[in-house]
């Protein structure tokens, strides 16, 4: 049932959903094109997504200290993607990335510099030369978020609305015409009429128990796109960050903080026998830490499976060979925060294990960020395609900039030309958000934890047909337990209802990941099948996902664009 409630009706040219780097960049660019913009976020503007949690590197072929060109960056990106990159998207990132990095520099983000004043570039895994810019080894993301937020504040065309939870994109006659949702502060239903809608909601790592992103990254954009009629691609490729913190417990520190330590100081990955093992898996690491994330993840989990893992189920990461003064000189106050957590790196190794970190798959877009639904655009991590089967480190923020800017511009141009300002609102658009239902007797926060467990065990870095089928069965049971309506009544910050909407999204997205993984009967990049351990040339293709009614339908699409040899 629904009750008579006040409804908030908003109107704008371009609605941008999500305010990480991609969303803020999209809003800035659309505003620059003269469009009126609403930049909406389910949490605080510029503070809630993955960007602010990014630690270190942004990959871009500036050539500021070592000669470089975007073609080299592209070759490395395509190699990491294991033949599955949509090269037109990868090329856009590599070719236009430098422009955005220099723009951010002009906006005083504070990229680290060499003594001669040039922007400093660090070597990161998978890159053939130093290519990654950073602000500080642990605070690149916060600096980027703060700088972009500062620019957004000054852009008068952009209205910012935080605590606005978008549940569905409105579609009229096959065209995106706005979005429906609710205001978290008071629970009021909200309808936004927009001539163009940009999805900038980030990834899906919240589907996994251990993840390095925020609680908002439950795949919102993928569900919004699917229900609007758009197509997703490559959903089976979930990137696990190899050395996520595992033990001992750390309070108030990011679980992926060890990467900068490793880049800067070296750090030995050891198994239970206190032996380095990464080279046992066909890698040649040789102290340079250039093994890509999929390979490092594979090596660590293989050791655990072979019974040579650390006590908590990962690998040891040791800095015991680094003198205390070097540690302190490199990471000053961080060393004290570690000490407060009982960790002395000169005396003990810590335990690390792969942690869900990024999603290569996502909304299928063309090089102008258009989805298959007119008026609906997508950018940043919400997009699939540019990273293929494995993302190169440092490419995430670059693509957030480039895709965000491109999406903002395309959306603004679309809005200028669009004639859908008076499109009728689809019937029932606000039924869910204004529904009043009895409490279910189910704890939806608990069901989310159950889903995270299912995904971690059976749809993690190692997969089998049995496991994936088990996960699908568990997802089906969870679907029946969720119920058809959000529990209780709309009200101020009602998290029980928020959980229901999150679960509705997460189950749909989890099923898309699992079905795509089941169909890919090979091992490639971040997708490893124990029952099909080799790469199979027959699978140089994209799995696509659409919705038909409530059912997920898988399709196949050819890989477009360059082959490696053309650009190398």
């Amino acid at each position, binding site marked *: 049932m629904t009750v008579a409630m006040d409804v*908030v009706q908003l109107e704008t040219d371009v609605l941008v959903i999500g305010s990480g780097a991609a969303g803020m960049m999209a809003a800035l660019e659309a505003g620059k094109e003269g469009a009126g913009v609403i930049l909406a976020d389910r949490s*605080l503007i510029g503070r809630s997504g993955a960007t602010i949690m990014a630690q270190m590197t942004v990959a871009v072929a500036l050539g500021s200290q070592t000669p470089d060109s975007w073609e080299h960056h592209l070759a490395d990106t395509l190699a990491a993607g294991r033949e599955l990159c949509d090269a037109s998207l990868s090329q856009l990132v590599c070719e236009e990335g430098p422009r955005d990095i220099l723009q951010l520099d002009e906006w005083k983000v504070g990229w680290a510099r060499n003594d001669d004043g040039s922007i400093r570039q660090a070597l990161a895994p998978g890159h053939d030369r130093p290519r990654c810019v950073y602000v500080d080894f642990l605070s690149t993301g916060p600096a980027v978020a703060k700088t972009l937020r500062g620019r957004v504040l000054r852009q008068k065309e952009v209205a910012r609305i935080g605590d606005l939870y978008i549940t569905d994109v409105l579609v009229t006659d096959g065209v995106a015409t706005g979005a429906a949702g609710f205001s978290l502060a*008071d629970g009021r239903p909200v309808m936004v009429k927009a001539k163009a809608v940009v999805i900038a909601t980030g990834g899906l790592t919240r589907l996994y128990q251990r993840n390095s992103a925020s*609680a*908002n990254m439950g795949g919102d954009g993928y569900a919004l796109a699917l229900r609007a009629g758009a197509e997703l691609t490559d959903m089976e490729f979930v990137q696990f960050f190899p050395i996520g913190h595992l033990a001992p417990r750390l309070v108030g520190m990011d679980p992926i903080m060890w990467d900068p330590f490793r880049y800067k100081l070296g750090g030995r990955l050891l198994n239970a026998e206190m032996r380095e093992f990464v080279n046992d898996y066909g890698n040649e690491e040789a102290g340079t830490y250039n093994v890509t994330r999929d390979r490092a993840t594979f090596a660590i989990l293989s050791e655990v499976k072979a019974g040579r893992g650390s006590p908590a189920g990962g690998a040891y990461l040791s800095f015991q060979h680094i003198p205390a003064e070097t540690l302190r000189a490199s990471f000053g106050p961080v060393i004290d925060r570690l000490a407060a957590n009982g960790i002395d790196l000169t005396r003990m190794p810590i335990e690390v294990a792969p942690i869900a970190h990024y999603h290569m798959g996502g909304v299928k877009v063309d090089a102008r960020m258009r989805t298959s639904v007119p008026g609906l655009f997508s950018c940043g991590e919400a997009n699939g395609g540019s990273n293929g089967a494995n993302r190169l480190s440092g490419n995430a923020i670059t693509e957030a900039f480039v895709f965000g800017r491109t999406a903002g511009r395309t959306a603004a141009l679309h809005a200028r030309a669009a004639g859908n300002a008076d499109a009728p609102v689809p019937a029932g658009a606000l039924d869910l958000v204004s529904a009043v239902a009895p409490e279910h007797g189910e704890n939806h926060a608990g069901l989310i934890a159950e889903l995270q467990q299912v995904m971690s065990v059976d749809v993690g870095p190692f997969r089998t047909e049995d496991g994936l089928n088990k996960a699908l069965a568990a997802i089906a049971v969870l679907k029946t337990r969720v119920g058809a309506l959000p529990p209780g009544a709309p009200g101020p910050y009602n998290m029980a209802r928020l959980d229901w909407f999150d679960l509705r999204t997460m189950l749909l997205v989890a099923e898309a990941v699992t079905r795509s993984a089941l169909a890919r009967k090979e091992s490639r990049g971040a997708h490893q099948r124990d029952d099909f351990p080799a790469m199979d040339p027959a699978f140089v293709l994209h799995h696509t996902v659409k919705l038909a009614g409530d059912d997920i339908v898988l399709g196949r699409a050819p890989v477009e664009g360059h082959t490696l040899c053309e650009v190398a």
Partner: protein
Amino acid sequence: MRETATLIVRRGNAGEDAPTSSYEVPYTPGQSVLDGLRFVRAHLDATLSIRHSCISANTCKECMIIVDGKVDYACTARLEPREMVLEPLGNKAHLRDLVTEITPPDERMEHALKSGLGKVVAGA
């Protein structure tokens, strides 16, 4: 015997009396108060409203509450095996349970409405 932390949490909506709920949370060293609150939501009481975005990484700064009378981040305050009293911030408008209105004034819905971006209509 297994140790527990007892979280005594101020509940209710804005303007209501302030009842408290008491939750027993299993304690292991190295947990944050946010870990305890997330345990409560998943296992004991999903109606408890809290606010956070990052999970104990102290980057989003959304989980600021009052812990034993002092303003603190739930994600950096350590959970301890004793009674801990948790309250919403006193200097921000109260929304529900531990959640207060921390959104900057010009990023709230009311501001958008005042700026002429839309209107409120009576629902059907």
